[in-house]
């Protein structure tokens, strides 16, 4: 059964898309991430134009992060105030990012920037997570306890202005760092078609020192709004959101995520982080491979339609 995608302008097997959505949904449920960093390269790999893959990826993340955010909110794991500061920054970052996409597409360097960005961010985050999770695993195996939450230490971040009290996070800190983090993640969301969970979660833990139990919920809360804004802006600026593609991916993703979440309960946190790190690195290496190895076809052709000028 094939489906003609109205914006990507191609015909593709529905079951391929649904199983992709389910596989990525499974991983996202398993690891508690949005899965955008796997979905976007996969879409490009099966022939969806990169710009459409990025625009549509954002829409798919709205659905997956929405279901996660609602579940977290019910458990009281969302710091709304912190979330709003992150969103405020995120919206600014998204607006900038969508415009950067437009400029890069015109220059013909969008694909390159996406690939380089993936290699850089997935590489850095993957290696950091791998080191952290393997040292924790080693400690646990040596009989010690896993690393707990570090006590709040004073740093130069506390000297910044616009101090705010975040009751839920038990923090009294400047609003500048979360706003900057939000901006950065919003920018990445727009350019790479990701939610940015794998960047915002470590940032909230290690930079803002938020309690880990409310980090994931707050990150998901921010991701819903930032990817929603990214979707609307991509549609308005680049017309690269394919509703039919998004819908099919969401259907697969919703089911996959539930099975992933069940499977995730059987694994320990540091084990999950170890395998997630391995997956992140693998995707990064795969994208990097195409950049370094001489391609079989050195030329590419892009028709200028839809007023991309």
């Amino acid at each position, binding site marked *: 059964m094939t489906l*003609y995608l109205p914006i990507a302008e191609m*015909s593709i097997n529905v079951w391929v898309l649904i199983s992709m959505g389910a596989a990525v949904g499974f991983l996202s449920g398993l690891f508690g991430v949005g899965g955008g960093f796997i979905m976007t390269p996969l879409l490009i790999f099966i022939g969806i134009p990169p710009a459409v893959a990025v625009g549509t990826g954002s829409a798919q993340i*709205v659905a997956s992060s929405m279901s996660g955010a609602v579940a977290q909110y019910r458990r009281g794991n969302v710091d709304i105030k912190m979330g709003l500061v992150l969103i405020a920054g995120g919206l600014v970052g998204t607006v900038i990012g969508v415009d950067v996409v437009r400029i890069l597409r015109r220059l013909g360097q969008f694909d390159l920037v996406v690939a380089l960005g993936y290699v850089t961010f997935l590489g850095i985050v993957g290696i950091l997570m791998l080191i952290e999770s393997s040292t924790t695993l080693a400690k646990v195996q040596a009989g010690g306890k896993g690393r707990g939450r570090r006590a709040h230490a004073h740093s130069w971040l506390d000297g910044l202005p616009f101090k705010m009290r975040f009751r839920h996070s038990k923090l009294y800190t400047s609003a500048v760092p979360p706003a900057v983090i939000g901006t950065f993640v919003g920018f990445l969301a727009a350019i790479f078609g990701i939610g940015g969970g794998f960047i915002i979660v470590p940032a909230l833990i290690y930079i803002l020192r938020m309690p880990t139990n409310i980090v994931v919920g707050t990150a998901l809360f921010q991701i819903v709004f930032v990817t929603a804004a990214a979707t609307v802006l991509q549609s308005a600026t680049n017309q690269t959101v394919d509703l039919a593609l998004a819908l099919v991916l969401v259907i697969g993703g919703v089911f996959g995520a539930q099975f992933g979440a069940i499977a995730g309960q059987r694994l320990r946190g540091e084990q999950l982080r170890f395998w997630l790190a391995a997956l992140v690195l693998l995707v990064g290496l795969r994208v990097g491979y195409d950049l370094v190895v001489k391609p079989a076809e050195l030329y590419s052709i892009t028709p200028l339609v839809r007023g991309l000028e």
Partner: protein
Amino acid sequence: MTPIARLVSALIAVLVASSTVATANPAPAGPETDIARPGQLRTAQQQTKPKPSPKTTPPDKTRQPRPTPTAPVILSPPPERIEVDVSTRTIEVTSAFAGTEIIVFGTVLNSQQESAESGYYDVVVVVEGRGATSIVRLKSNVGGLWINTQSVRFDNLPLYSAIASSRPLDEIAEPSVFVANVIGYTRARMFPGRHSSKVTAEELEAYKTAALRLKQKDGLYVTSDYGVAFIGPALFRASIKLPANIPVGPLGARVFLFHDGQLLASQKATVMLERQGVDRLVYDFAFEHPVWYGILTVAIAAAAGLAAALAFRR
């Protein structure tokens, strides 16, 4: 051999010779022949010379004409014209669209061909989408990474092009005839547009070749050397496959009739590729109201996420 037969073969020889003399006295073009070619001179010359009826002596280039049982009738064969049409004038591109096939068919009026197999005429069918500027980019190695470094723009490159012919094009006529009638996307017609990198003539040639190769690889430029078949002395047909990735828009079908390397007649038909159903709604909405389209997409995605959270709550 009767004297009549000798007369007929001499006549044929004169006719063939005269058809190679170009631009002496232009023939009046028929209403359907929109391109006047030297080939039409043949008919002009014929009007002044007596010639046997085509029914009794089919002018087959491979065989000697048969002797006619009756005296030669003084009658000039009228010029050939063609009438063409397509099997489907409007193709609906819906969410189930997975490519399709159209039949371009036509008939030769005043055909002088004896049978479908005689090969007296050659027919070339060109089906093309609208033209658009295409950017061809070249990757090169910069510090170990393969990145796009140069680009050349070709204006008015058809988004889709299919050429079907009764024989390979180089057997039908000289390349100049095809260039003059824009049959096939000949490289000679590709000029670098604005914003192109500065490239040498050789490099430009490589870009042109690459552009055509990439289009062929995507299935958007296709040639079919024996894709046109005669079904009778006058009726011919060509089946043209339209791939699923064909850009939506109007398609023009042009049909050319050749004999002996000369263009005798040409005719046009149009096929519309139109989005229909949900696909059309989505596409129009996305491009006419992109902000609302984005909001709708987000609303649907958010609703799906909410529904999932509620359905699977434990």
